[in-house]
């Protein structure tokens, strides 16, 4: 093969790949910046008609991310702790709950009674791959939720946490933010 052709192809691949990658990184960064897991959790709780309770711990403390809410059928408040899927969350959770509290873990389509890091990692990988083709309904962030409730709390309705990661929330939020300029 001609030397000039090989050089041109390599140079083209270099320039094109960098241009595409810069754009892809910016898009991903914007998506991650828009993703506010605390606000998303609070929205989902409100949508289910439950009242939010104030978290006494304030930033920059780690436990300031806990979202408290009150189910009418339960005496004690329930709480949701967002955490990175590879982090060990139980010691943190132990600081805001009693040992007998029931725990349930949620991440995108999955729900577990125990922290399942490997399953969550594969769940993330699945949606990260789908996201390349624009086929993921979720934002592929590595934030999972753990819900902790008192043992005597038997809620009448379960909460669907999947909207926390759903992309339409963030698209709507972005459109909403840009909305007033058009009116």
């Amino acid at each position, binding site marked *: 093969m001609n*030397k000039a052709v090989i050089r041109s192809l390599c140079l083209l691949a270099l320039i094109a790949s960098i241009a595409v990658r810069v754009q892809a990184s910016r898009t991903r960064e914007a998506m991650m910046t828009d993703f506010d897991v605390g606000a998303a959790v609070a929205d989902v709780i409100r949508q289910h008609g439950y009242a939010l309770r104030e978290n006494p711990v304030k930033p920059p403390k780690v436990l300031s991310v806990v979202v408290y809410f009150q189910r009418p059928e339960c005496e004690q408040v329930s709480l949701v702790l967002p955490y990175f*899927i590879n982090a060990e969350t139980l010691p943190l959770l132990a600081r805001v709950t009693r040992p007998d509290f029931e725990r349930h873990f949620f991440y995108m389509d999955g729900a577990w009674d125990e922290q399942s890091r490997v399953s969550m990692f594969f769940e993330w990988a699945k949606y990260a791959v789908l996201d390349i083709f624009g086929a993921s309904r979720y934002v592929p962030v590595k934030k999972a939720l753990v819900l902790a409730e008192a043992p005597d709390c038997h809620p009448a309705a379960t909460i669907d946490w999947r909207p926390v990661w759903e992309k339409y929330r963030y698209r709507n939020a972005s459109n909403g933010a840009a909305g007033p300029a058009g009116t």
Partner: protein
Amino acid sequence: MERPELPAAVASIGRREAYLWVAICLLANQAVQLIDTGSLQAFAASLAAQNYIYWLACYVVVYRLNVSDKAARATRLDVCLVLAICVLVFFLSFLPYRFGTGLLATVTAFYFLTAGGGDRNLKAAGGVLLALSTQLVWGPIVFQLFTPELLRADAALVGEVLASLRPDISWQGASFLAPGGHAIALIGGCSSFNNVSTAVLACVAVAMLIRTEWVGRDFATLLIACTVMILVNTLRLCLLAWSGPSHDYWHDGDGAQILGIAQSMAVLLIAWWGAAPWRRAA
């Protein structure tokens, strides 16, 4: 002067140049993911926060490829692979994760290690590229799967040190609680795994910068560098758990920079000391 006819299996481009194109494509794509190009300020901030050992390793890869056999011509297989990797680099650039480029860097590293024949510079470049892809891709994957276990190991070391120096600090799992109400919980960024990974890269890069072959002593150097990194990180975590003001200084104040520079200098000095030619002569 009449030019000799090239054999059918040999392309017109030199092997050194072909491999340099691949390496530059891979390293440039990795670099884009490490630098924030959002604004000039963000760009400057991301430059200041760079791991310069990573950039040293990139330099070593390019340097070793550049001093490899200039007379060797690329075979058709070389050219096909180089073009295939460049095309794959382009397609993987749509993927905003490090994994794709890292996987290609690993494949390329193995190719450099095996296809170089007797060219030791190519093998050295392959070794450093392999260490680079391990640090950027494979290490983080292992870390993600074993974060709690690795943090517990770090916490155990810190707990043992504090038990003798500050028995009033209680330790549970990966959390430490000082008497005044000051508490810290170790998270991913606190782990010495990251420091160990950097130490491995530094030892490989410096050794392959100075020479092109491995000696038995390199493994001892690697072991010393990793041990020092773990000890320095343990010291840092002890200082963070000590008290609130100590945490502020060593985590968010000047202390963080002092420790960062000290760690980089220590690992580079150990790597250089282990790889220095005068030590081989001795």
